[in-house]
C-alpha cells in the first residue's frame, strides 16, 4: 500500500505515535497513573499465581478468621485460607472473563454495526432490531436470565457478558460509520475505484477505531463488574475457586460481626481494577477527542 519504502514509513509512523503518546502522557499525569495502574493489574493477572505466598485453596482450621498480620497480609477466611493469595490469584480469572467477553462483543458488535451503518436498508433494520431487543432488558438482569437458563458455568458468564455488551459496539460502530458514509473522502475513494466493501474496510472502519477503543476500555471495567456481580449472587464461578465477587459474597456474612477483611480486600481489588480501566478510558477519550487536542 504505502510508497517508497514501507518499512521506513511504518517506522516513522510508530515513532510519531510514540512521540505523541509521550507528549500526551506528560501533559496529563492522571492518564499516566491510569497506565501504570493498568500495568499493575495486568501484572497481577499474569504473575499472580507465581507470586502468591500460599496455596489459595489450602484450608487450615487452626488459622480460620484471623485478622491481617505480617504472616497473612489480608488475613484469613472462615476456612483459614490466605485472603492475600486468593485476591492475587483471582485477578487472572476476573480479567480473563472480562477480556474474552469484551473481545467477543467488540468483534461481533462492531462488524454488525459497521455493516448496518454503511449499507443501511434491511441489514440496518435487522441489526437495530437485535440491539433494541437486547437493550429492552435491564442488561444485568438479562445476563442473570441467560446464565440461569444456559447453565451455571464460567463460560456462560463470558457469553452472557459478551451478549449484553454487543449493542454498545453495534450502535457506536453504526453511528461512527454512518456519519462518515457520505464524507467527501469516501466519495473520493469511490471515484478512485474502490469497491463498496473495500470502502468500508479500508477507508471508513479504521477511522472509527479511536472512539471504539475508548469504549473498549470503559466496557472492560463494566464487564468485570458484571461478572463479579453475577458470581456475587451465586452464578458462574463456584466455590472454592477464588474470584473477587464470590469472595465478597462469602465475606458479606461476616461483616456484621466485624470480620471486615474478608470482604474488603477482594472488593478493593475489584474496585482498583475497574477504576484503572475507567481512568484509562477517560485518558484515551481526551487523546481521541479532537476538541481537546489543541
Amino acid at each position, binding site marked *: 500500500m504505502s510508497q517508497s519504502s514501507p518499512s521506513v514509513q511504518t517506522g516513522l509512523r510508530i515513532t510519531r505515535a510514540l512521540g505523541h503518546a509521550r507528549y500526551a502522557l506528560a501533559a496529563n499525569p492522571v492518564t499516566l497513573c491510569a497506565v501504570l495502574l493498568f500495568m499493575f493489574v495486568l501484572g497481577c493477572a499474569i504473575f499472580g499465581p507465581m507470586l502468591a505466598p500460599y496455596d489459595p485453596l489450602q484450608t487450615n482450621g487452626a488459622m480460620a478468621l484471623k485478622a491481617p498480620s505480617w504472616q497473612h497480609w489480608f488475613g484469613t477466611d472462615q476456612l483459614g485460607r490466605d485472603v492475600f493469595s486468593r485476591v492475587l490469584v483471582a485477578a487472572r480469572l476476573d480479567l480473563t472473563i472480562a477480556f474474552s467477553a469484551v473481545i467477543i462483543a467488540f468483534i461481533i458488535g462492531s462488524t454488525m454495526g459497521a455493516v448496518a451503518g454503511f449499507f443501511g436498508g434491511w441489514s440496518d433494520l435487522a441489526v437495530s*432490531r437485535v440491539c*433494541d*431487543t437486547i*437493550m*429492552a*432488558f*435491564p*442488561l*444485568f*438482569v*438479562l445476563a*442473570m*436470565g*441467560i446464565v*440461569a*437458563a*444456559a*447453565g451455571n458455568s464460567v463460560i456462560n458468564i463470558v457469553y452472557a457478558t459478551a451478549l449484553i455488551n454487543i449493542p454498545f459496539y453495534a450502535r457506536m460502530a453504526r453511528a461512527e460509520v454512518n456519519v462518515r458514509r457520505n464524507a467527501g473522502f469516501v466519495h473520493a475513494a469511490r471515484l478512485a475505484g474502490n469497491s463498496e466493501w473495500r470502502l468500508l474496510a479500508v477507508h471508513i472502519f479504521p477511522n472509527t477505531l479511536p472512539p471504539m477503543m475508548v469504549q473498549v476500555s470503559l466496557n472492560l*471495567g*463494566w464487564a468485570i*463488574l458484571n461478572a*463479579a*456481580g453475577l458470581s*456475587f*449472587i*451465586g*452464578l458462574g464461578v463456584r466455590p472454592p475457586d477464588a474470584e473477587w*465477587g464470590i469472595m*465478597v*459474597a462469602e*465475606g*458479606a456474612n461476616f*461483616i*456484621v460481626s*466485624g470480620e*471486615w477483611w474478608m*470482604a*474488603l480486600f477482594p*472488593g478493593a481489588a*475489584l*474496585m482498583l481494577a*475497574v*477504576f484503572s480501566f*475507567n*481512568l484509562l478510558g*477517560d485518558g484515551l477519550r481526551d487523546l481521541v477527542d479532537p476538541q481537546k487536542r489543541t
Partner: protein
Amino acid sequence: MALGVKSRLILSRLAQALPALAGIVVVTFILTRALPGDPAAYFAGPAADARSIAQIREQLGLDRPLPVQFLSYVTDLLQGDLGRSISTGQPVAEALMQRLPASLELTLFALLLSALIAIPLGVAAARRPDSWVDQACRLLVTAGVSLPTFFTGLLLVYVFYFILGWAPPPLGRLDLIYLSPPQVTGFFTIDALLDRDFATFRAALAQLVLPAMTLALFTLAPIARMTRASMIQALGSEFIRTARASGLSERRIVYTYAFRNAMLPVVTTLGMVFSFMLGANVLVEKVFAWPGIGSFAVEALVVSDYAAVQGFVLAMAVLFVLLNLLIDVVYTLADPRVGMEG
C-alpha cells in the same frame, strides 16, 4: 394544532414500545424453552425424579412442537400467568406483585437522591471547567462507576451499622418492632405518612437510607457526567454567545437558556441509568435483605427455581420498557423539535 401533532407523536411512541415487548416475549421464550438442555428438568427443580419431570413436561406442553408451545406461552402471559414457583408453590406473578412496591420504593428514592446531587454537581462543574469543583466531579464520577454496588453496600453497613451504630441492622424494610403501615401505595414511607404514623415513617426511612445511598452512588456517575458534558456543550454554543451579547443576566443565560437545552440529552440517557439501576437493584437487595423482586430472584436462583427466575426477568424487562416509554413521552413533550423537522 401543535397539540394534535404532539398527541399523535405520543401515540406513535406508545406504538413503538410494542416491538420491544414482542422482542422481550420472544427472548424469554427462548430462554425458557429453546436452549439446549431439558427445560422440564429445569422447571421441576433439582430434587425432582424422572416421573415428576415427565409430569412437568406434559403439564407445560414441552412435548409439543415449539410454535405451539410459543402460542400457549403467549396465551399464558396475556392472562398474567407466569407459572408457579416450585419452592413456595405460589404463582410467580402474585409473588412479584407483592414484592414490587419494595423495589420501586428503593429505586425511585435512590434516583431522586442521585439526581438531586448529580445535576447541581454537573452544572457547577460545567460552569467552571478545570476548577476544583470540576476535578472533584470528575473524580467522583470515575470512582462512582468503578464501585461494585454490592461492595459499597457492605462498606456502608460496616461503617454506619457496625462501627458507628447509626443505621439499623441491614435486614429488610422495617424493624420487627414496627407494624407495616396500612397499604395504600405500597411504599412504606408514604403509607406511614398518610397514616400519620411518624415513628413508623422514621423507622422505614432509616432502613431505606443505606440501600438508597448505595444505589444512588452508583447512578450518580452517569447522571453527573452527562449533565456536565451537555451543559458544557450548551454553554459553549452560539446561542449562548448571542444571549451574552444581548446582555441577558447570568441567571437567565445559565438556567433558562443553557440548562433547559442541556437537560434534553440528559433525559435520553436516563434510560441507560434505569437499566443500570434495575440491575444493581438485585445486588443491593441481596446485601440489605430487602424484600423486593431482586432478592426474590436471588433466592430463587439459590434453589434453582427456574420459573421464578424467568418470571422475574420478564417482569423487569416489562418494567424497563414502561420506564423508557415514560422517558420518551417526557422528551417528546419537552423538545419542540421532535417530529417537526424535515
